[in-house]
Every structure is written in C-alpha cells, then in structure tokens.
C-alpha cells in the first residue's frame, strides 16, 4: 500500500497542473441521441432522416465571426450533426440542434430550416427557463417562421432594443435569435457541399422537369480565363432523364461583385445554351437579376463578345461545362 500512497500526491499535483479555466463536458457517446421526436414534430409529413456529421474547426469560427452581428467566443470545435429530413424520398428540410447557454443552464434548440436557410420552425429539445412556455405560447415562434439570416438579424436588433417581446422573456428570445443566426451561418459554411447536393435536385427538376436524375461530378482544376472578379466553381451535376439520356448540366459558382455576393446556379441544356440562372436564396436586387436573367437562352462562346460582368461569368461557366 505504500506504493499507492506515494501515487496519490503525484496524481493530485498532476491534476492541479492541468486544471484549465475553460468550460466544457466530455460525455460518452452512449449519451448521443438523435432528435427523433423533434424531427417528426417539425416535419409532420417527414418519413425518414439522414445524419450528416461534419467537423467544425477554427476556420469556421473565422467565417462565423465575419457574419454575426455580435462578438462570439466560439469553441464548439468537434463533430456536429445535421439531419436531412425526407418526405417520400425528397428533401423536406434540415434539422440542426444547437446548445446555447441561457440563464437557467443550457438551452438545446432544434431548428428546422428549408434549403434556402429560412426558418420553418424551432423547438426546445431542452430548456429549463421558466419563461419558455410563455414565450412558445406567444406570437414569437410563429413570427420567426419564414425568416432568413437578415430578417433574424433585424429581429434581434428589435428585441434587443426592447421591442415586441415582454421584458421577462427577452433574454430567452435573444438567446433563440442568436442561436438561429449561428445555426444558419454555421450550416451554410460547414455543410456547404451537402447543401449543394440537396439543392441541385429541386433546381434540376424545376428547370428540366420532374423526372430527372442529377449526378454530381468532381470538378478538376483547369485553367480559366481571368474575368476580373472573384468567381469560384463549386460543383457540377450531369442531368439525365429517366432513360439515362443526358439532358443538361448544372453548375454552381460563387461570385463576388459589388452588390452581388453569393452562389449562382447555372442550368445549361444539351445544346450548351444557358437555360436558367438563379441566385441561391434569391437575387439581392432587380439590377443583378436583370443582368443575369437576360443571358438565359443564349450561348456565349467568345470572350470578346462579353460586355458585362454577367456575360464574363457566363462565358467562364460555359467554357467550364465544355471542358472534358
């Protein structure tokens, strides 16, 4: 027993050295549980769901802090899950559960979003705030439905300035709104590729008809003419009809111009004409929409024909599509 007695001070000293002023918990994975109940409450017509686990790293904190209207001390690095909910084989929306710190302990909020990152609803998976039931019975949850990132940001300013929500429910409402903003920003950033896959199918079906199959193909780095602004190819999908014949291509790009920063979907038919161009989440203004929509049904094959940024982008996209 002398050996054991000698060991104890060493162990205690060791622990005194490693005590860190941070907060966290390390739970065994048997405590992991899918939000099954919440999935079917938020998507009553849903019949299945799919887990998409991704690693959240320091690079995501940087992106998040760029977007959020409040300072964060984000340390949620690790593996996080997103749930894609299906209804009759088609994506009905996504679920993401976030833990936030509230006045009465952790608040676990289950967010339901559509593929444009608009709020379909939310539920508490866990909330011990005595104001929770009052807040949920009021108009607040209904008001958030349909809101995207910018609307949630406006709502947050409104609530923080003392409007709309009763004073005793305000702290919880702010927690919820900040959680919603983080959920949207983080989901767009961390599950970018998975979301693109989910979005490709409904876009293909809206352009080419309801009976299409889209298959993603990996983009290879290829030389691209320098168009003078930031343009990034992010994905490409071959679109086939039920017989397996190729009927077109989808290309997803990101673009960064003055007044237009976002993801653009390009649908190209089998004759290499631009069939449709859509901005993910909607066009920011009429001018941007007109600049790109006027390209639909056109073929642009020569760099010298381009007079606008939109045409330059289209030329680059069509060249990408024509490349083997």
């Amino acid at each position: 027993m002398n050996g054991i007695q000698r060991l104890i001070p060493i162990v205690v000293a060791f622990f005194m050295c490693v005590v860190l002023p941070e907060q966290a918990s390390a739970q065994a994975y048997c405590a992991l549980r899918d939000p099954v109940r919440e999935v079917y409450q938020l998507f009553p017509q849903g019949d299945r769901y799919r887990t998409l686990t991704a690693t959240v790293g320091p690079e995501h904190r940087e992106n998040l802090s760029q977007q959020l209207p409040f300072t964060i001390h984000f340390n949620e690095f690790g593996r996080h899950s997103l749930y894609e909910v299906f209804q009759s084989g088609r994506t009905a929306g996504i679920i993401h559960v976030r833990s936030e710190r509230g006045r009465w302990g952790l608040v676990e909020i289950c967010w339901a979003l559509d593929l444009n990152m608009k709020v379909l609803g939310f539920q508490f998976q866990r909330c011990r705030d005595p104001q929770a039931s009052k807040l949920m019975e009021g108009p607040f949850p209904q008001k958030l439905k349909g809101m995207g990132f910018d609307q949630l940001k406006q709502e947050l300013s409104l609530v923080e300035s003392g409007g709309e929500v009763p004073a005793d429910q305000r702290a919880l409402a702010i927690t919820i709104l900040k959680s919603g903003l983080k959920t949207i920003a983080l989901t767009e950033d961390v599950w970018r590729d998975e979301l693109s896959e989910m979005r490709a199918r409904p876009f293909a079906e809206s352009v080419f008809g309801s009976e299409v199959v889209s298959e993603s193909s990996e983009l290879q780095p290829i030389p691209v003419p320098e168009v003078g602004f930031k343009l990034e190819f992010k994905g490409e999908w071959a679109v086939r009809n039920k017989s397996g014949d190729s009927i077109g291509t989808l290309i997803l790009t990101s673009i960064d111009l003055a007044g237009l920063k976002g993801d653009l979907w390009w649908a190209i038919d089998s004759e290499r004409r631009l069939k449709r161009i859509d901005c993910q989440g909607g066009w920011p203004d009429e001018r941007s929409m007109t600049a790109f929509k006027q390209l639909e049904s056109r073929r642009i094959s020569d760099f010298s024909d381009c007079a606008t940024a939109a045409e330059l982008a289209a030329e680059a996209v069509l060249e990408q599509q024509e490349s083997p």
Partner: protein
Amino acid sequence: MVIVLIALSIFVLSAFPADSGVVNSISVQPRLVTNLLPSLQETAADESLIQDVLTGSPPGAGQPEQEWTVYDPFPSGIPLDWLGPVSDNLRFAIDLSGRFEWNSQRREWGISQFYGFDLFKVFSGKEGDWGTLLLQGFATRINNVQPHPWFFDGPTDWEFVYRIFNFNYTGLAGGRFNIKVGHFEMPFGLEMLIDTNGTLRNVDLARNLGIKADWGVTVNGVLEHVEYEIGLGRGSGNEWHASGSPYEFVGRIGTSRSEPWVFGVSGFYGDLYRPNVPGNTIHRRRLGFDVSWFGAPVDIMSQISFGLDGEDTVVNSLIELGWRPASETTLFYLQLRQDSRQFDPEWSTQIQTRLGFQWAVDNHWVLSGEWVQNLTNYQSLPADTTFRMQIRYRF
C-alpha cells in the same frame, strides 16, 4: 498489451494527419475588371452599404463573449477525416480513467483503472439513416477492490469489459421502431435518462437487478410522447455463458425526456448467471416506477421498485437532488437510497446517502468525487463510509 496498442494507435494517428480533401474549386483573381462591367460596374450608394455589411465590423460587437460559448459535448479528439468515407458520421475517442476508493471499515485503498475506446458511427444511405454502431470496450484493472463485480476473479484482476457494444438497426421506421443487437444496457428506471457508464454517479441499476448490461436483442424507439425499449438478454452480463440457461426480459416505457416531467414504468424478469451458486443462476423480478423533474438548475429524480431476489421480497427506492450552475460543467448531487429485503420472516434495511460531484474541467478531463455514507446497514452490519474519486480523460 493494451497500453502498447493504445500507444501504437496514437503513433499511427499522429503519423497520418487529417487530409485537407480533394481540391474542387477554382479561384479567379481580379484583374480586368473596370472597363468590362457596364451593367454592374457603377457602385451605387446602397452597394457600398451592402459591402460594408458583408465585410465591415458588425454592429453590436463587444457584447460579452463567454455567454455564448458552448463546447461540443461529444468531442472526437482524434482527427478522423484522413479515413476518407469511413469517417462519415464517425466519432471515436480513447477513454482513460482511474478510480480511487477508501472504505472506513477496511481502511484500505482500492484502485480501478479503465483503458478503453468509444466508437459511434451512423450508417446512412441516400434515403436516410439505417443503423447506429456503438462500441465501448475497456481493459479494466482492479487492485484491492472489494466488493467487486462477480466476473472479476478476485479483488485484484484484469478483465476486458464491454459496456455498450451493439448495432441498432434504425431503417424500419425512421427511428420510431428499431432493433438493437449486441451488448445493451438494461432499459430499467432512471438509467434510461442518464449516462452512468464509467462514472461514479449511478442509479443502483447493477445492484438492484444484478446486471447492468447484457448480450441480446431489444426493440426500441422514440414516438411523439413516448420512448420505449424492451429487450431479451442472455442473462450472463459481460461474458456469454449458457450454463443454467440464464435469461432476462427487461423493458421500460416512459414519457419524453424533452419535457420537464418524465414518468416511466419498468419491468425485469430473469434468471441470471452466477458461476458459484447451485444451478448457476439466481432469480430476480422487479417492477419499477420512476418520476423525474428537470427544472431551472435543479433536477429531482426518483425511482422505486418492488420484486423478488429468489424467495426474498425486495423494495428499493432512490431519490436524487441534483444542482448544476448555469454553465452545466459541474453537477452536485445528493442521493438517498433505501434498500429493504425480507429475510424470512424479518425485514432488513440499508439506508445510504451519497454526496457527489462531477466537474468537466474541459472537453477532455472530468474529475468526480463521491462520499457514500451508510446510515443503517443490513442485519446490524456497521454503518461504514466510502470515499471515491475518479479522474477521466477522453481524447
């Protein structure tokens, strides 16, 4: 041997760091902009505003940061992306812990060491999830630990312990009706609501039923207002033994744990394997009820069960008062346990209190301690005291 394996795993994982993945995007750098952008070139006042919003300092910056910080509660400290598709929906952690206990009657230290792994993987197809694999295996060393689980050969021994080691097939009804095969935890009482694997804090499951986990099959699921799990097991616990034909039926049906009030009813019926008793089995029956309330920083959890140990009538109850600060990194709990049994014809009762804490120092280290005080003990056994401390590290 186990230490060598762990060291080897760490070396392999260090030698093959996370891959950044396949490059599938092309950046086109600005160059020819100005005279080619008639339609989008002119910067209107509102466009400057948009640019500021997208790249400038966000309004509201400077609010307290720490309020909005919550760690990943299930960290997977080892980079997994280098595994490629195998890493999809995979979490893996090495779990090491040491437990020290001192008893006032024995006046000796007992030490337990656990060297294990924790693996969780969701199997998924394009149309949804269809299964969950959960593997927790621990090389366990006990030194001078008494009493000890029966499957250890003595107070000082090595055993490989399967905590939870099963596959749950979830492809039938999207999580509402699943079939689990493997080594499963007994779905009985409060154990369904909290994780007590590898923790000092427990809710008396192993002592009450005579078994904590077993090889077998369960059906389980989550419905809108109800959670359930009903299983049939081999009745031999950590290892598979058929001598004496042991078995158990066990199950619990409860209300949703997302609500502040949770109610459950459980049942257990079985003959459990024991190597050193006539017929190699002991008989246990239980009917249990549990009620919990989760509110504010306080939890109250309680359960009561009735039944038979062989021919002896048994009544057990437990109530726990838990308190967590808002950060929830620390839990303080006070348990009061009562365990009465009728040794024909006399009843004998043990009443015990447990005062303990769990402190998640960060997302790797957990420190916990417990003071166990018997207020009265069976058949005039001394009211002894036990102190326990545990250090746990997951990475």
